[in-house]
């Protein structure tokens, strides 16, 4: 049987862009489960929105002559025939130069490109599975419309971060039906960027709790001095924060001459100059906090308090980041593997509602920060879903 055909729609294809990491794995293969794996798909059409001096798409097309670069999204999906000619679409609207909103969100064109993609589906009278990298859109209304469109047109939509599917150190999966009382993620990076990864790290764990996901009631963001006051006031639990930090491999030493130490809060203040936290409450009462602590850590560390029996669980969601230490962002390998499942079966291996919720949380987090840290009610985030019983993070 001939391989299924795929098209890729990306904003920019340069070294270390998400498109490079993801599309390269479909072109060149990747190490998986102890062998070098070549996905059984033919990537035939590519659209790149911004082609700069550092572009790699032409080099990739030369080495992979089955793939043609088209000047339009429609061209890439129809292979110039005017009719949808592929069996799945890879859509990576991350990286590239796009204007920012007044709140600082980069306006990656995920919604407009999504509209162009579904317009091809509509004109062709046929829909195929679509992977959307990261959150659905910086704008909640657009994200919701993307979600509703996929539902009404009936095609598999997969989205989100690689954090939920990457290695966990140690390997830990939240037991289905666990009674989760509180959860935190201590991580790093920028607002409207890595905050989303931190939120996905928490959500992929807590969605497995007793009763399933019920959605989020409110969110409040804290920044700078307000962050430290919230920590002192016990807005989130200090012992959970410590448990998460004890999973880090990148704690900045607070004192010269020491290589690995747990800082005091006073020391943390000198290391993390501009910390950000989003604290939010789910409808069933679960309280979660995502913390961006640039200067203190450079990894993603999760901790939760469970009831009955009462205990703290913790792990690191591991990103072997090509920042000089690795050359491959191999956390994209389990993402590619799950994308293969989407294209094989037509269904996302994990619920799109997870990313709909984290998309909404990211946008509200930005709103709360922009408004100076006010508590925001989130009636629109009353999103119910059940997590799949099968665990999806990488262990193979």
């Amino acid at each position, binding site marked *: 049987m001939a391989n299924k055909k795929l098209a890729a729609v990306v904003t920019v294809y340069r070294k270390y862009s998400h498109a490079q990491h993801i599309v390269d794995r479909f072109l060149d293969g*990747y*190490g998986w489960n102890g062998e*070098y794996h070549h996905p059984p798909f033919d990537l035939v059409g590519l659209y790149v929105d911004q082609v700069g001096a550092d572009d790699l798409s032409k080099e990739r097309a030369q080495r992979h002559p089955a793939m043609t670069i088209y000047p339009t999204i429609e061209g890439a999906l129809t292979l110039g025939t005017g009719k949808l000619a592929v069996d799945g679409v890879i859509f990576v609207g991350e990286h590239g130069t796009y204007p920012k909103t007044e709140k600082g969100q980069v306006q990656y064109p995920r919604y407009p490109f999504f509209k162009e993609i579904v317009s091809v589906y509509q004109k062709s009278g046929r829909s195929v599975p679509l992977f959307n990298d990261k959150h659905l859109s910086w704008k909640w209304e657009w994200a919701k419309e993307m979600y509703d469109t996929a539902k009404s047109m009936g095609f598999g939509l997969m989205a989100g971060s690689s954090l939920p599917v990457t290695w966990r150190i140690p390997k830990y999966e939240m037991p289905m039906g666990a009674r989760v009382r509180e959860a935190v993620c201590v991580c790093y990076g920028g607002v409207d960027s890595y905050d989303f990864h931190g939120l996905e790290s928490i959500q992929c764990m807590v969605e497995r709790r007793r009763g399933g996901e019920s959605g989020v009631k409110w969110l409040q963001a804290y920044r700078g001095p307000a962050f430290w006051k919230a920590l002192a006031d016990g807005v989130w639990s200090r012992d959970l924060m410590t448990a998460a930090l004890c999973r880090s491999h990148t*704690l900045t030493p607070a004192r010269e001459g020491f290589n690995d130490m747990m800082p005091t809060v006073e020391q943390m203040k000198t290391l993390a100059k501009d910390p950000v936290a989003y604290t939010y409450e789910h409808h069933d009462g679960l309280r979660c906090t995502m913390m961006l602590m640039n200067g203190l850590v450079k990894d993603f560390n999760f901790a939760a308090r469970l009831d009955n029996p009462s205990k703290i669980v913790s792990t690191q969601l591991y990103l072997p980041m090509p920042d000089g230490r690795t050359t*491959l962002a191999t956390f994209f390998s389990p993402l590619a593997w799950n994308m293969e499942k989407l294209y094989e079966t037509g269904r996302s291996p994990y619920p799109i509602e997870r990313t709909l919720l984290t998309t909404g949380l990211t946008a509200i987090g930005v709103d709360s920060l922009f408004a100076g840290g006010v508590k925001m009610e989130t009636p629109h985030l009353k999103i119910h879903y059940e997590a799949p019983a099968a665990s999806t993070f*990488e262990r193979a």
Partner: protein
Amino acid sequence: MAVTRREFFGFAAGALAMGAERPPIRVAIVTTIYKYLSHGQHIGDRFLIGYPIDGEWHQPNVKVVSLYVDQKPEGDLSSARASEFGFKVYPTIAEALCCGGPKLACDAVLIVGEHGDYPSNDKGQKLYPRYEFLQQCAAVFKASGRSVPVYNDKHLSYSFERAQAMVKTSHEMGFPMLGGSSIPVTWRLPDVEIPLGSHIEDAVMVGEGGSDAMDFHALEGLQCMVERRRGGETGVKAVQMMVGDDVWKALDSGRISKKLLSSALSRSDTPLGLSELDSRPQDLVGDGVLPGLVKQPAAYAIEYRDGFKATMLMLDGAVKDFNFAAMVRGVGNVSTQFLLTPVPNVTYSARLVQKIEQMFMTGKAPYPIERTLLTSGILESCLESKKQGSVRLETPALKVEYRAV
């Protein structure tokens, strides 16, 4: 701002109080140097300020009572640590172990004979004084009529004969000894263990970083996996260290399994060459790019006494991490990366310190010192083979038998 001891310990203060039911274990540290990021510092410090383990900041119920440093290079931290943590730096090992008194005054000894300025021999081995350090400790034990557990960092000695004498001393005097690399105890991606008693058909380990520091780590990675084979460890019959084109010939001829090499490399996060250029994934074996990337390949071919064969490859230029693959009958291909976490935290050393602490607390080594005795011997014999022109070298002395735990 001056940080008080209490503030410094921060979260750990509670754990310290709770663990204090029995008097703390008194530890003497004997090290070549104590400067930032030396093994002496990052292992020693964990007994002073605690370390992260199992999601907690763990403060061992240990009191470092003395320190001996063989060399004080620029950046030496020994006196700063002594004054901050309330112990003394002594001019001799004997005085350190006796805390200046007439007889042994500690409950455990941490020997870290790694880093520092020492000469090398004609096999390229750095002549760290680990044997001398241990014998000086044993002399104190003997004079005091009491022995205590000893940790010896990395290989026992550059010389197998001396390594063997060290193990003999520990057996004769009845003190437990732990040694070796942190590779066997670090996280594995994925988290696999070969079932004890397995029929392992073949195994390949890939390391990088040169001899004789990183090749030892790679040999320990290999040995901690293959020692679990059926029948237990029997020792090594012969070794051959191949370099240059002979390595590629051994791969082409099938003497070294390309399939297992490919499997090990599929676990790497750091393929070099084109992946370094533009981050594309590469099938390093299938694409045939290894000879172009690795200018000085080395293969440490090991024939065990029970007929099992395994190979450790040092492939500087191909990857920058440590990966393993084996073919296990009835299980299939088992492959993994031994994760070496980033500098400066080097959190893998916390996993090692947990094992050291366990031995200090219980008086039992959590895994056999014979593993490290054997890897010390394999390393010396392989370097000897290379020195003699990559000959196959019979190694009757390496009849090191033990059972994995």
